[in-house]
C-alpha cells in the first residue's frame, strides 16, 4: 500500500502523518505542492494539517489551487482515496471534493486539547477498525474548525450516512457536532481531529492508530 503525503509551505503535520502510515505498514512518498503528478501507484493521498500558505485569504484556499491539487482532485474523481486532516480538511472543502466550509471557531479561540469523538460510520476503509458508535479520544488543534453547510447539505450528509465522526462535546460550534465527513463514494474523508497524533503509546493513547491500520489493511488487499 502506497500513501502520498502532500507538503505545502506551512504544513506541520506532514511527517506525523507519514510516520502513522509507515508504522501501519505503508510505503510513503512525500509530494511537494509544486509537483504536478503523484507517483503512479498511489493508493491514498494524505493532505496534512498545518497552516498552508499561512492561512492567507482563507484557510486552505491557496493550497487548494496549488499545482498538486489538480492531481488530488483527479485521483479522487477516479475513485482514489484521500484523507484530509485539519488544514487538510479545509483544503478539501476549498477544492470542492467535500461540501461545506470550516469557519472560525465560535469561541474565537484556538482550541488545542484531546476531545471525545463518536464514530458514526464504520463501513469505510478509514473507520472499519472502530466499533459502531464507539467513542475515541484524539486531539484537536485549530482556530477554524467550525463546520458549516446549509441545512439541505447537512440533511443530505446525514441522510446518506456521510458523517464519519461527531464531537461528543462540541468544542468549536460545528453544525450538528460534525467533526468529519465523507464523500459520496466514502473514499474521501475530511476531519478536524488528528488521529496521527494519537497513534502510538508514547502519544498518550493509540486510538488514532486503527484508522491507519484499517486503511493499510483494506487498500493493500484492494
Amino acid at each position, binding site marked *: 500500500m502506497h500513501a502520498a503525503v502532500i507538503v505545502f509551505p506551512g504544513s506541520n503535520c506532514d511527517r506525523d502523518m507519514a510516520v502513522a502510515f509507515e508504522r501501519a505498514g505503508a510505503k510513503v512518498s512525500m509530494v511537494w505542492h509544486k509537483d504536478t503528478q503523484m507517483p503512479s501507484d498511489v493508493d491514498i493521498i494524505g493532505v496534512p494539517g498545518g497552516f498552508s500558505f499561512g492561512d492567507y*485569504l482563507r484557510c486552505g*484556499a491557496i493550497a487548494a*489551487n496549488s499545482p498538486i491539487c489538480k492531481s488530488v482532485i483527479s485521483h479522487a474523481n477516479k475513485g482514489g482515496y484521500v484523507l484530509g486532516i485539519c488544514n487538510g480538511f479545509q483544503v478539501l472543502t476549498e477544492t470542492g471534493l467535500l461540501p461545506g466550509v470550516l*469557519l472560525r471557531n465560535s469561541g474565537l479561540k484556538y482550541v488545542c486539547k484531546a476531545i471525545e469523538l463518536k464514530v458514526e460510520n464504520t463501513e469505510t476503509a478509514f473507520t472499519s477498525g472502530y466499533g459502531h458508535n464507539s467513542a475515541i479520544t484524539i486531539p484537536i488543534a485549530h482556530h477554524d474548525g467550525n463546520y*458549516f453547510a446549509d441545512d439541505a447539505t447537512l440533511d443530505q450528509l446525514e441522510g446518506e450516512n456521510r458523517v464519519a465522526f461527531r464531537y461528543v462535546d462540541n468544542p468549536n460550534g460545528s453544525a450538528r457536532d460534525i467533526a468529519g465527513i465523507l464523500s459520496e463514494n466514502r473514499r474521501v474523508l475530511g476531519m478536524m481531529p488528528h488521529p496521527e497524533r494519537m497513534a502510538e503509546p508514547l502519544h498518550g493513547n493509540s486510538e488514532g492508530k486503527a484508522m491507519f491500520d484499517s486503511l493499510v489493511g483494506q487498500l493493500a488487499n484492494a
Partner: protein
Amino acid sequence: MKARVHVMLKNGVLDPQGEAVRHALGSLGFDGVEGVRQGKVIELDLTETDADKANAAVTAMCEKLLANTVIESYSVEIS
C-alpha cells in the same frame, strides 16, 4: 485599471468575529450597535484597460479564489 473587491459573509452565516467586535463596542460604551459584520476588501491593479473585460476577469477571480461562495458574497468595483 484598479479593481476593488468586497467580500462579505452571506446573511445567515454566523460571523463570530463581527459578534466579538459588537461586544467590544458595547463594553467601550458605544450603545445602539445592533449588529456587526466583518468582511474584507481586496484591491487589484490590473493591466486591462477595458472596464467590462476587467469586470469579467475579476468576477472570475472571485469565483475561483477570492471568495468562497458557499459562505461569502462579493461585489466588484472597477475604476
